[in-house]
Structures are given as structure tokens and as C-alpha cells.
């Protein structure tokens, strides 16, 4: 995720201090990964240098952390461009799982076992997310759903691979 664009976007609703920005970010997007103060200030100095934000005021006695930032016209345009540009779909072509399955087959190990164990681990994570979704608000539900759908995609791949193990074993040992 682009932290710079996200912080810029948060500034669109009005000027904020660095600390406020961090708090707003963590609350809305940081669930498992809160921002470090260092990240906020290094990002803000970059945005400042590029003219995307300006200092709106400095509190008395303050170091850099007391600066209040406001978004500039150039910053608003930058956010607009970011939102309008589609994200590149990730093809996930270099899959560790695929590598493990092939290696298991090449070395005569039980690839079915490997897939079963992986499925179980995926489901364990899906249970944690499902539980969090049950207890959470709508924002939590949407974030968990995003993760759940990705895990589910992995699982569908695991099932399909499990069903094709014999063919794959033949292909990799003959190849």
C-alpha cells in the first residue's frame, strides 16, 4: 500500500498534525500493522519536498512533530490520480507452494500430505479471521473478507493440485 498517498488522502478532509495522521491511519488501515512515527515523519518530509503538502502551522515549542500539515492543490491531484489508476493484479506466479509440491514429488515425498497440512494451516488462519469478522464492525468485516477471499483462492488451488497430483508427479519426473 502507498503510505504517502494514504496520508495525503487523509489530509484532504483538513489539516492535521503528524501524530493525528498516524492515529487516523492506524485506526482505519493499520489493523495489524500500525505505522511507526519515523515512517510518518519521513513520508511527510518527502511529501513536503515534492510540494504535495505544506506546513499549515507549527505549535509553540515544537520540534518537527508539532507541525500541522495541509494538502496542496498538487497533492489533491496526486490523490485523484492514484485513486483513478487501477492496481496491477498480482499474478503470484512464483509460488512457494508450487515449488514445495514439485520438490516433494521429485524427491519421492508425500505431496498429498504437504497439501493437507497446508490446507489445515490456511483454515486455521481463516478461522481466526472469521472469528474476528463475527465480532468486528463493518470495516473489520470488509478487511477480513478481503483476506479470506485470497486464502480461499489458495485453497482452491490446493484442492485442484491435490486432484492432479498423479499427473503432476508423472510430468515432473519425466521432464
Amino acid at each position, binding site marked *: 500500500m502507498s503510505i504517502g498517498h494514504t496520508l495525503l488522502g487523509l489530509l484532504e478532509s483538513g489539516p492535521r498534525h503528524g501524530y493525528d495522521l498516524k492515529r487516523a491511519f492506524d485506526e482505519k488501515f493499520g489493523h495489524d500493522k500500525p505505522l511507526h512515527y519515523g515512517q510518518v515523519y519521513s513520508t511527510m518530509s518527502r511529501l513536503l519536498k515534492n510540494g504535495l503538502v505544506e506546513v499549515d502551522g507549527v505549535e509553540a515549542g515544537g520540534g518537527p512533530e508539532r507541525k500541522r500539515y495541509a494538502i496542496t492543490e498538487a497533492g489533491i491531484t496526486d490523490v485523484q490520480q492514484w485513486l483513478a489508476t487501477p492496481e496491477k493484479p498480482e499474478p503470484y506466479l512464483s509460488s512457494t507452494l508450487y515449488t514445495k509440491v514439485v520438490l516433494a514429488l521429485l524427491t519421492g515425498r508425500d505431496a498429498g500430505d504437504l497439501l493437507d497440512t497446508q490446507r489445515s494451516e*490456511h483454515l486455521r488462519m481463516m478461522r481466526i*479471521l472469521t472469528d474476528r469478522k463475527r465480532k468486528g464492525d463493518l470495516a473489520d468485516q470488509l478487511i477480513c473478507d478481503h483476506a479470506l477471499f485470497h486464502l480461499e483462492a489458495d485453497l482452491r488451488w490446493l484442492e485442484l493440485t*491435490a486432484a492432479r497430483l498423479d499427473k503432476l508427479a508423472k510430468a515432473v519426473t519425466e521432464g
Partner: protein
Amino acid sequence: MSAPAGSLLSAQDLRKAYGPTAALDGAHFSIHAGEVVAVMGPSGSGKSTLLHCLAGIVPPDAGTITYNGRELSGMSDAERSALRRSDFGFVFQFGQLVPELSCVENVALPLRLNGAKRKEAERTALTWMERLEVDDLAKKRPGEVSGGQGQRVAVARSLVTGPRVLFADEPTGALDSLNGERVMQLLTDAARSTNAAVVLVTHEARVAAYSDREIVVRDGKSRDMEHVL
């Protein structure tokens, strides 16, 4: 092998063939009261056959099934039928509600079949419909409600007799994600509140994520993933 200690329902070394095809080929299973166990596996792996055997609907060719300390094979057909009515509840993918009856009459049906008076049965039915958030549909016929609502009515009906084991075979198979998840949430909440065990057959991981653990059935053999990791 004997039944795992403390399990409410268990099966050892189940075998079942339909003609030359082995549907179950040495499957094991166990579930405790209050537990939700997902039975997963590809189509044709033997998941539904396992459920049917566990519920006493289909007799296995070999192996033992123990419910609450009693072997199912030692019971007569009549005893097994009585057990299904008194202790087991069922939810399937679709087509389970009687179209000529209203929703509340559908939910009350198992109680009526057990001899309860209509008023009393419908009062109990309504409390279950409230829990499944479909009490406002009481007077409607199944044909007048949506798929998700109908499935919640079916869940209410499966729980109305206070079963100790609920068998759910692809209960969300005919629903979209949002409705399916709502059904799973209400179903598992309701079952947990009554300490019922749920045997949940599904091929959907998002549905299985509502379980406490899963077993995987492949080529008629089962694998309890709890004992793998």
C-alpha cells in the same frame, strides 16, 4: 479401535460400497458435544456417504458407529428412526421445506410429528425463528421467501427439537456469499448455545472456517487434521 473418550458420536473403520465403487474405505470420525466439525473433500470423495452413515440413514457395510455409548448397528430400524427424530437434526442444500405449509408450520413440524399440540409446537417454533431472524416470515409459504430466508427457516426447523447432533450437508450450497455466511453464523451460534454437535459437510473453505476443526475425506478415507499438525 474403540470410540475416542468423551466423544458423543464416533465411527471407526467405516466401509461402504455402491456396487463396485467404494464410497467409504476405512473412514474414522469423532465429535464431542458442542463441537462443530467440518467434513471436507472433493466431490465424490465420500463426504455425504459418511454423513448418511453417521446419521443412521444408510447402514455401512462394515465398521462401527457409536452414539452416546450405543452402537447404531445394534439398534433396530425403528430405534434408529426414533433416534433420528429425537436426537438428530438435519439441514440440506435445498428443497427441504414443505411448500403447502407456512414457515412456522414447517418449523413446528418435527414437534408435531413427535406428538406436540399445534399451539405449543408453533410457540416453540417461533422462538427458534426469532433466533434465526425469520420470525416475521411465520405466516408466509416457503415459495414466498428468498433462498437465504428459506434456509434459515430450515435451520430453525432442524434445531426445534433440541437435537444433540445437527447434520448439515452443504447448507449454504445454494446461497450467495453474504446469505451463506449469515446462515453459517446463525447456525453455529444457535448450535453452540444449545451445546449441540454439528457435522458440517462442505467443500467451501469459507463455510468450513466456521468450524472448530476439519476432517478431510479423500477416496473414501478420512484424515483428522487435528492430529496431523
